[in-house]
């Protein structure tokens, strides 16, 4: 096994924001890399974006090796383990840290270090703070400075072990939803019952629920919705997409939505454009743009994008006086789960009522179980 070494370089700059001369273009390449990071927050990165980021990073590292001061060396594996532990700071595995953030990053690393390395790392953070330098992480064939040990981080398996909800699983299995929307489709009915049992098993064992290969998107949406009707302790279910990527656990929390007075307007939307163009004339628009959703990234990343986009759009819709959406499902599981994850988050945080009426395309349009409505009464679990 080859241990890949990452050298931590203290770098004087000039960093973005400073007005010092920039003879080797360091500030430019850092700005280029930051631009791609910002772009990634707004939407998917394309192959050219990734190339630009990689090229900028290589240049940053090259300049740091020329002008920087080596502080210490750590293995890439150690950073990866730190990141996987889930308690690391933002941009934990980034290739550089601006002067304002670099000491904090080093101190967070120091807190995970075994005692002998902790003091050295904290000392480096103090030096960095005093000098106003930033930090660049560059791969190198040989170590420079002190070799830091791997951070002492919790076992990722412990996270899984903490996601066992036997009481919730029992509650799910003790009640069997009626699956009214699928009463005309025996295969969907059977599929929903199977997925319901799998969901309960996943909640009980902490194993992920496979998504995309075992049930169609409408069955999946209905099963998740039905779980909110069951009186059970709040639980989380892990979501594993067919590409092997795991999304954030989906919250299964009993919902008691109140009926809402007809106070706002209603719109009829398709979930995603370009998937069922035959219904273009029957809807007011589409929730997601296919071009932004169907792009080259993992399905869990796509789901996260859809959830974030949904939260933003719901706020816009509510401020425009729209309180109800009839949503015609057009498939693609990450878009479906992302939408409902975003909806649940928004409903929990927003001080407003909103309802979504799912509509499933099953030869003809069949209404599903509605999500949301009036504000959830306080004091509910």
């Amino acid at each position, binding site marked *: *096994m080859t*241990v890949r070494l990452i050298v931590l370089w203290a770098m004087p700059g000039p960093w973005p924001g400073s007005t010092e001369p920039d003879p080797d273009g360091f500030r430019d390449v850092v700005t280029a890399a930051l631009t791609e990071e910002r772009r990634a927050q707004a939407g998917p990165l394309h192959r050219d974006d990734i190339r630009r*980021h*990689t090229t900028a990073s*290589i240049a940053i590292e090259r300049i740091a090796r020329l002008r920087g001061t080596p502080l210490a060396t750590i293995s890439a594996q150690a950073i990866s383990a730190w990141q996987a532990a889930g308690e690391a700071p933002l941009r934990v595995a980034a*290739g550089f840290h601006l002067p304002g953030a670099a000491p904090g990053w080093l101190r967070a690393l120091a807190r995970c270090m075994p005692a002998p390395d902790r003091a050295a790392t904290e000392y480096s953070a103090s030096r960095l703070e005093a000098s106003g330098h930033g930090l660049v992480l560059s791969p190198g064939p040989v170590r420079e400075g002190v070799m830091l040990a791997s951070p002492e981080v919790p076992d990722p398996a412990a996270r899984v072990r903490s996601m066992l909800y036997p009481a919730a699983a029992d509650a799910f299995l003790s009640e069997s939803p009626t699956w009214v929307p699928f009463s005309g489709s025996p295969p969907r009915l059977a*599929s929903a019952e199977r997925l319901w049992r799998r969901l309960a098993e996943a909640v009980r064992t902490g194993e992920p629920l496979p998504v995309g290969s075992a049930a169609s998107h409408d069955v999946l949406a209905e099963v998740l919705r039905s779980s909110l009707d069951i009186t059970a302790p709040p639980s989380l279910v892990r979501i594993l997409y067919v*590409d092997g990527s795991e999304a954030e656990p989906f919250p299964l929390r009993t919902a008691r939505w109140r009926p809402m007075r007809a106070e706002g307007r209603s719109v009829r939307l398709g979930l995603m454009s370009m998937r069922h163009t035959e219904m273009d004339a029957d809807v007011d628009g589409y929730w997601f743009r296919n071009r932004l959703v169907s792009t080259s990234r993992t399905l869990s990343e796509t789901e996260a994008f859809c959830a974030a986009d949904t939260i933003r759009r719901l706020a816009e819709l509510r401020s425009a006086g729209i309180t109800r959406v009839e949503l015609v499902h057009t498939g693609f599981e990450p878009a479906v789960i992302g939408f409902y994850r975003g909806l649940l988050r928004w409903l929990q945080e927003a001080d407003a009522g909103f309802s979504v009426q799912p509509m499933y395309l099953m030869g003809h349009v069949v209404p599903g179980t509605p999500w949301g409505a009036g504000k959830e009464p306080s004091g509910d679990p």
Partner: protein
Amino acid sequence: MGKGQGLPRQGKRRASRGDSARVPALRTGPGASSERVGSFARTYRLALPPAWQEWCEKQGWLEQPDAGWELLGLVPAPSGMDAAAMFAGMRLALRKTVPGGFPADLIPVERLPERQLACIRLDGRDDPPVVIIDLDDPGSWHDAQPAADSFSRYAQDFAEQAGALRGVMGFLHYTQREVDSGHRAPGQAPRPDDWRAYRFCSQNVVVSMLVLRHNRDDNVLDVGACLITALSRLDPDAPARAICTLLLAEAYRAGGDLTLRFVQGIRRGADRLAVPWPIMRWAERCGIEIDRDSGLVPADAARRLFIESVRADEHLAGRLRGGSMRVEAPAICYGIASGLWEPTEVEAMLAWSARPGQLLRGVTDPLDRAVYAADLLDVRSAMLLAALVRRVAAGDGDRKLDAEDAVQSVAAVADNDGTCLLRAKALLIDDWTIGSLPVRGASAIRVAVADAEPDQLPSAIDFALARLQPHAAAGPLRAVLCPRDLLALGIPARNTAVHATDRAGVVLLAAPQYTPALTIRAADKLSRARTARQ
């Protein structure tokens, strides 16, 4: 691949929906009387094999009516032909034109395209082999290519193929009706859970026709029709191996657990079919147990079959069979099958990377540069090693475009210490060497890769030399392999590197690749690996 190398049976009749609805996919004739069989044997003084005699008396003939395929016995088939008539005709027609005439130990049992015949070769066995001969090439008749090692097996394959062809044709008619009626757009690409047909060809030979879909309800890959031909000039199981690769790659891509289920057509709730014989034979050869009658290749057996079917040598297959790679093995096999990873690259990454599973699935976010940079270096090193293997395989030539262009096989075994041992008949890679140490004449070489950004190359070469140091005492020639950037460093830096390697008795090799191009290709590979299953 030309004439005589494959077996796409001749389509003599145009299949139509009406035909399919009325006529079974396989028709059998009345059995021949024992007098008729005995008379044929006496007339030509033949010792007929018992298995074929029994088949003639029971089956008479077999016919696939859509395509007009006929397996001949001693009763005239619907075309009016039988084996005795064909045998007599061949002997008569070729008596004067071919020295020695038509061989007396061959009995024709099926007419094939391009003037080829499938014949039983009478070799004294009770159930003799079936061979394919080319009527235009009498010189090859004595060394005819085998189609099946027994007539019984050939007849089984015929029956299975007849049913599978009907399944494929039925599906194509169904799809055409869907398009004609406007229910389906003509250019609409099928989704993983839509039924779809594949025709798998190798040059001018149809190797296989398949109808399949991913079944979401049961999370399996349903195979509604599976027709596998005999490409007998190659390894007898080569077609089955290729089809297993294709089926399991489809199963992986669709997100299933790799379970295969063979069913009769595309109707919902269709009956199970037995696992096709070619796949059974390939699985048996690989030591994998499958219950043929269940019609299922379960997930565990399918995973093993995937490992055995992809283009991996025994050493690499052994790594993939190991328990630590249980989860990642299907992803890696898919990567090899889809051309994303070369087997040598996988071998190197499994041995050298600290987290090979994540690396081969490309899970690192490119913006997590500190981890991603390490991944890129792991992939680049593997790519450099694979380039060296391709160069060695090319022998004296200077290029290798495809597996078919290789002039010698190369065994690459990577060790956990960051080195790899290459073995070949002759290492003819002097065009890659820098410095004074020759490689020509050696048959093995232990390689350490020195890959880094150009300004770090001298340090990387020193580090690679340190890795090779434990192998100095004995053993094969040693080499440090680095990217072409070394030559652009300037003469002093290059000379320093050459002197260091010469002093250590190590060959310095410069691959033709430069680091910027290597980085771009490595990033593309990781990106493809990351989204392979969509």
